[in-house]
């Protein structure tokens, strides 16, 4: 890692890390017994740990070869390792909180392990830890290959990667300490939010500068999706997290948005986090790794452009469907509902484009579990976007909102679409990146595929059942107009589904562990691919259009 840096870059890295350690020390000093103080210590330890390899490698010989003649893959490799580590952590926390709903004793009577504190460690762990690292790693890979240019920075890719992970660590450790802004998917407090802005702007500049180096006349569509992801997440994050801390020495802050505006801003953020974090970036993966793995160009490039702009401009308006039947003006609710329904068009355009790319190569989908991961991801993407549009319709929402149906919908998207496309992409990426002939075991990819599919289906079906039962029980009235069931009655009815959900999640977690083992063994023991094999031109590309 350090060998690739020149001596001035090493000095710069050390200076940044010392600065970060200084900030950590200052946070610890001003925060004292507040959680801010604990986070100061974490920042200090994090920077100190990274400083160690920088200082031990400080006087190593400088790189002699022309670095511009090869791609910068080291940060991607570390990114993949971090992706899988967060996957196992985040999914384990998910299984734990799911099990707590069925067996509340699993909270073990401690404050840090209550459901309310553990749940955000699951959501942040999988969305930001697993999804975010996967997006950073694959975007670094895709932008270099499609631009045929090396990343436009030697130190900044590391800064982005480790800086983002520091944010994740601060977020997750904060929840356990009881720190939260009480905003869904934006629970981390003000100092972590400011840090993320710095990291994210660096990411954006790095991405733009790399694209500016390209020799290709056209920017490949996958990069558009990655750019939309980076730009919009920055905007959402800044606007939703505008807050005033109670003092410089406290973790607690108060948002500047009042009442219903706060709700609107939060769900404008929340839904676009789904749109641009969990959709746009992963569509970037889909538009690169699916054609590459199938060795067929995307079915229609024009359609991918149309659906890009459709998704970008429709999603922005859909957030208010989270606030049906609230104090939000009725027309704003209707606006959100209408745009959510319209979103089905560009969403299905992308899903259809992916599936039509595979049309004519179904035998490969049958034989190659990696390609099947991506095919299943496209199918789940199509299904969950249909479900989402449907649930955004106000009368449907009257039944589904606040029930487990919503949770089932989120997981159809998160497990079925986001995680499956990520695993498919990783199985494509890992052998190329480490220059291996293939994955260590095709059979284990197959095992992972079926564990993931079984886990997702069990999870989603359990939540559909429990959600609709809940919704119906809550709106059943007796003859004299009183509610027929108490809340506890509906809770008791959920018991078998909560067990099934925990089991489905457990299967999915086992799949992720199998994936870790397979990646590890690929790097450790699979022979290197022969140079010549990598240089042969693509097998005859079949035009899909």
């Amino acid at each position, binding site marked *: 890692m350090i060998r690739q840096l020149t001596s001035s870059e090493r000095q710069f890295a050390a200076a940044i890390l010392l600065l970060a350690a200084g900030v950590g020390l200052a946070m610890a000093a001003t925060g004292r017994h507040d959680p801010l103080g604990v986070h100061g210590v974490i920042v200090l330890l994090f920077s100190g740990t990274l400083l160690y390899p920088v200082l031990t490698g400080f006087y190593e010989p400088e790189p002699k070869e022309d670095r511009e003649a*090869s791609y910068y893959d080291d940060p991607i490799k570390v990114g993949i390792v971090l992706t899988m580590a967060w996957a196992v952590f985040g999914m384990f926390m998910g299984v734990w909180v799911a099990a707590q709903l069925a067996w509340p004793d699993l909270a073990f009577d401690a404050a840090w392990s209550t459901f309310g504190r553990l749940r955000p460690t699951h959501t942040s762990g999988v969305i930001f830890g697993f999804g975010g690292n996967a997006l950073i790693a694959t975007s670094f890979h895709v932008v270099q290959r499609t631009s045929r240019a*090396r990343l436009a920075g030697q130190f900044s890719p590391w800064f982005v990667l480790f800086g983002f992970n520091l944010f994740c660590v601060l977020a997750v450790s904060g929840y356990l300490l009881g720190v939260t802004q009480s905003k869904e998917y934006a629970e981390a407090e003000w100092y972590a939010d400011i840090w993320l802005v710095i990291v994210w702007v660096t990411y954006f500049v790095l991405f733009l500068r790399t694209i500016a180096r390209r020799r290709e006349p*056209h920017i490949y569509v996958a990069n558009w999706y990655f750019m939309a992801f980076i730009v919009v997440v920055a905007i959402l994050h800044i606007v939703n997290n505008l807050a005033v801390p109670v003092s410089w020495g406290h973790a607690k802050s108060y948002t500047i948005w009042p009442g219903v505006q706060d709700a609107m801003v939060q769900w404008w953020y929340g839904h676009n986090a789904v749109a641009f974090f969990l959709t746009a970036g992963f569509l970037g993966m889909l538009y690169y790794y699916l*054609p590459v793995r199938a060795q067929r160009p995307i079915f229609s490039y024009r359609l991918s*452009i*149309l659906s890009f*702009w459709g998704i970008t401009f429709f999603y922005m308006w859909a957030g208010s469907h989270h606030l049906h039947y609230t104090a939000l003006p009725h027309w704003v609710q209707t606006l959100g509902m209408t745009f959510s329904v319209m979103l089905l068009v560009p969403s299905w355009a992308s899903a259809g484009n992916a599936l039509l790319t595979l049309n004519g190569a179904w035998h490969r989908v049958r034989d190659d579990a990696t390609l099947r991961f991506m095919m299943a991801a496209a199918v789940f993407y199509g299904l969950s976007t249909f479900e989402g549009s449907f649930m955004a319709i106000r009368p449907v929402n009257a039944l589904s909102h606040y029930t487990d149906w919503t949770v089932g919908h989120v997981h159809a998207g998160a497990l079925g679409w986001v995680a499956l496309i990520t695993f498919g992409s990783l199985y494509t990426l890992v052998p190329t990146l480490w220059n291996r002939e293939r994955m260590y075991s095709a059979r284990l990819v197959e095992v992972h595929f079926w564990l993931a599919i079984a886990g997702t289906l069990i999870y989603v079906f359990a939540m559909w059942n429990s959600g609709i039962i809940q919704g119906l029980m809550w709106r059943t009235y007796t003859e004299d107009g009183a509610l027929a069931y108490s809340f506890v009655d509906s809770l008791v009815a959920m018991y078998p589904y909560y067990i099934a959900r925990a089991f489905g999640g457990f299967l999915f977690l086992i799949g992720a562990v199998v994936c870790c083992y397979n990646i590890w063994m690929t790097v450790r023991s699979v022979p290197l691919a022969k140079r010549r094999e990598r240089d042969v031109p*693509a097998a005859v590309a079949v035009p899909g259009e």
Partner: protein
Amino acid sequence: MFEISHETLVAFAKSWGLFYLMGFFLCVVAYAFWPSNRKRFDRAKTSILDREDKPWK
């Protein structure tokens, strides 16, 4: 100070908001189907399958 009332905002969103989206849609369709763009799109979609694994420089 000039106040934007709820009604003004609704009227603006329902008229200009709609025109803006329609105009945007037409621009995107024109870009996607512009005949001279065909060549770059075709090149873009097939060039990612090229296995050469080195930057141009």
